């Protein structure tokens, strides 16, 4: 009986129900924050326990915690908490600006909690079937959040999000079925045959032909949710049209979680095939995503689309790192997941308040933030510098590791990556700099924001990212190493 897992999963689930029933109360937002905080606390406890006692199997092996997923659990819970802190004033302001009704807020809050629940379930479950179910559920919970504003654009985005991810994830189901079929012969039919721990135990005996096909389906399926080119088309729309907190968690968390699922499958495929086939596929998709996304960047006019494409780029980088495999590369990939989700969510916080302050998402109309509201301006420019991989921020640390191991393992990829990084740098900086600096444009709605924006999360995230760039606590490093070892 393991109360931490129970709490980690139970709190958001119950919270979602509670917020749905509670209706539109003034304190809904505070409750949301409180629940997220409780979840984070529980996740902390779980982490502590795993660090203390090593991997955990619970509830007749249905749940499984090892260093790999526990660090993602902690990260998810943390970012979910900061995002809820940010969304409290943000959504109030949206309400005051008349873009949202109280009923929508109610939907938002309960769905937010359910979304967190589904992600945590994906991370914690030991059952590849449940993992699929939860990931699909994650789509379903967010699709209504994307269309929260009910504008034509948001509806279109949500529709594309739903159809593309739905179809994609259906392929993943086929892959799961094949996986089950392969494992059945070894583990007998029944629930055990889908438990990752068991699969991992026998992965070297799994049928290679089946596994290779299965992995293709899983890659296309989960890859769609990761946003790998050319399966990425839903991503920019969904990020740009949804409410900013949703963009933050989509980009900061959901992509990570989907990638986590993909990595778990890769481990099995590698075991069965004994060839670098799976890794090569992932590297190919990774490179494609990095390069294509980098070239997309310079055409953007909408600030949230801009950073959505940047997310594709970074996810591609991580996928490439995991594809390369090897202790250093996997370590770098995990580190990059962490710093990217922290930095990108913080950027979206800043962007959200910037758009509220200026009343537009069109970058040409956003000017001189640093004069309109210095904290927002600095938040945006520092985040941009960080996400572009400029030291001393942690993003550079992981990119340094990825690039250096690429130089050793996949020299052909290095120039491509560097080219893409250079192009992305030029594009993003040329967009963000004029928004932050210079004179404010007259179009801005006069006066201050009706609620004090919550910028603490922004700088908290940056502080963590900065620290990771300069100093990584030994236990954290060991933890990453452990996780990297699991990925292989």
């Amino acid at each position: 009986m393991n109360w931490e897992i129970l709490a980690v999963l139970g709190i958001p689930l119950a919270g979602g129900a509670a917020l749905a029933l509670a209706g539109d109360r003034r304190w809904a937002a505070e409750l949301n924050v409180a629940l997220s905080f409780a979840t984070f606390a529980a996740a902390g406890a779980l982490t502590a326990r795993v660090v203390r006692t090593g991997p955990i199997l619970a509830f007749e092996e249905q749940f499984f915690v090892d260093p790999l997923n526990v660090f993602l659990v902690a990260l998810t819970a943390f970012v979910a908490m900061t995002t809820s802190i940010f969304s409290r004033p943000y959504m109030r302001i949206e309400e005051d600006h008349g873009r949202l009704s109280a009923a929508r807020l109610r939907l938002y809050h309960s769905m937010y909690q359910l979304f967190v629940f589904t992600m945590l379930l994906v991370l914690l479950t030991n059952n590849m079937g449940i993992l699929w179910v939860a990931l699909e559920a994650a789509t379903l919970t967010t699709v209504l959040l994307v269309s929260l504003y009910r504008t034509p654009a948001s509806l279109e985005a949500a529709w594309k999000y739903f159809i593309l991810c739905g179809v994609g994830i259906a392929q993943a189901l086929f892959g799961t079925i094949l996986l089950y079929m392969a494992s059945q012969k070894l583990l007998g039919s029944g629930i055990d045959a889908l438990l990752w721990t068991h699969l991992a135990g026998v992965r070297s005996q799994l049928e290679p032909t089946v596994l290779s096909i299965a992995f293709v389906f899983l890659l296309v399926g989960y890859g769609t949710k990761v946003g790998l080119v050319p399966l990425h088309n839903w991503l920019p729309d969904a990020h740009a049209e949804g409410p900013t907190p949703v963009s933050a968690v989509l980009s900061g968390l959901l992509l990570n979680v989907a990638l986590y699922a993909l990595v778990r499958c890769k481990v099995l495929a590698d075991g069965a095939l004994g060839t670098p086939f799976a890794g090569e596929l992932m590297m190919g998709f990774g490179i494609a995503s990095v390069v294509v996304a980098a070239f997309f960047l310079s055409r953007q006019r909408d600030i949230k689309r801009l950073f959505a494409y940047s997310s594709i780029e970074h996810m591609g980088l991580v996928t490439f790192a995991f594809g390369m495999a090897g202790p250093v590369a996997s370590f770098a990939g995990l580190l990059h997941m962490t710093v990217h989700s922290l930095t990108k969510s913080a950027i979206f916080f800043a962007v959200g308040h910037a758009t509220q302050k200026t009343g537009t998402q069109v970058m040409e109309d956003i000017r001189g933030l640093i004069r309109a509201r210095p904290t927002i301006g600095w938040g945006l420019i520092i985040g941009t510098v960080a996400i572009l991989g400029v030291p001393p921020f942690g993003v550079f640390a992981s990119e340094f590791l990825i690039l250096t191991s690429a130089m050793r393992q996949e020299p052909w990829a290095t120039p491509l990556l560097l080219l893409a990084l250079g192009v992305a740098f030029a594009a993003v900086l040329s967009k963000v700099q004029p928004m932050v600096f210079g004179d404010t444009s007259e179009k801005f709605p006069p006066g201050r924001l009706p609620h004090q924006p919550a910028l603490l999360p922004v700088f908290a995230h940056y502080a963590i990212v900065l620290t990771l760039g300069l100093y990584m606590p030994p236990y954290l490093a060991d933890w990453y190493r452990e996780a990297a070892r699991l990925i292989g």
Partner: protein
Amino acid sequence: MTALLTPALVGQIINVFAAVLLLVSFAMLAQRRILSLIDLFAAQGFVLCLSTAFVAWATGQTHLYWSAGLTFVLKVLLLPWILHRLIRRLNVKWDVETLINIPTTMLVGLVLVIFAFNLAQPVSELAGTVTRGTLGIALAAVLLAFLMMITRSKAVPQVIGFLAMENGLFFAATAATYGMPMVVELGIALDVLVGVIILGVFFFQIRERFDSLDIRHLEKLKEE
């Protein structure tokens, strides 16, 4: 009774079911009228349900009865009913427009079927089930549904294609593995149900925004 059911015979009967399923998929691919499309979807579900039940009976996999029942309730009764109501509520009476003309689609579908068989051949060798021969057909059904989604230009047919794909997957599960474990089956069913409900919500929202369910209205978000 079961005695005179040699595995071979069982296999043949299941193959018959599979063939019918594939036939229905092709029919859906070719179908122009939306209401009959829904009926075909229901029919597909029914065939699926029958085959599942038969496999359960023939192989004694009792949990397959449950999934058969689930299929019946969900895909034969509930979803078609919901879709019918939607059609009536949104009174969309129009015929299905396709982006590619039907014969071409059929040809492509044919190629897909061959590809699917070809692909499933080595895999089904390895499956331990009497039903393994149908894996290729299941895959074909999935791919055909995919193709249908691509070619249809209206929201509802696309969704039906989506659900048809779900059917194909379900059939694949039965064929390759006598069905997934119960928990997973339930979870999948739940997802499908919720998905359809959300879709319903969507239809109304899209309808009220664009006063049409033609998804070609949904092409504003793009890069110039």
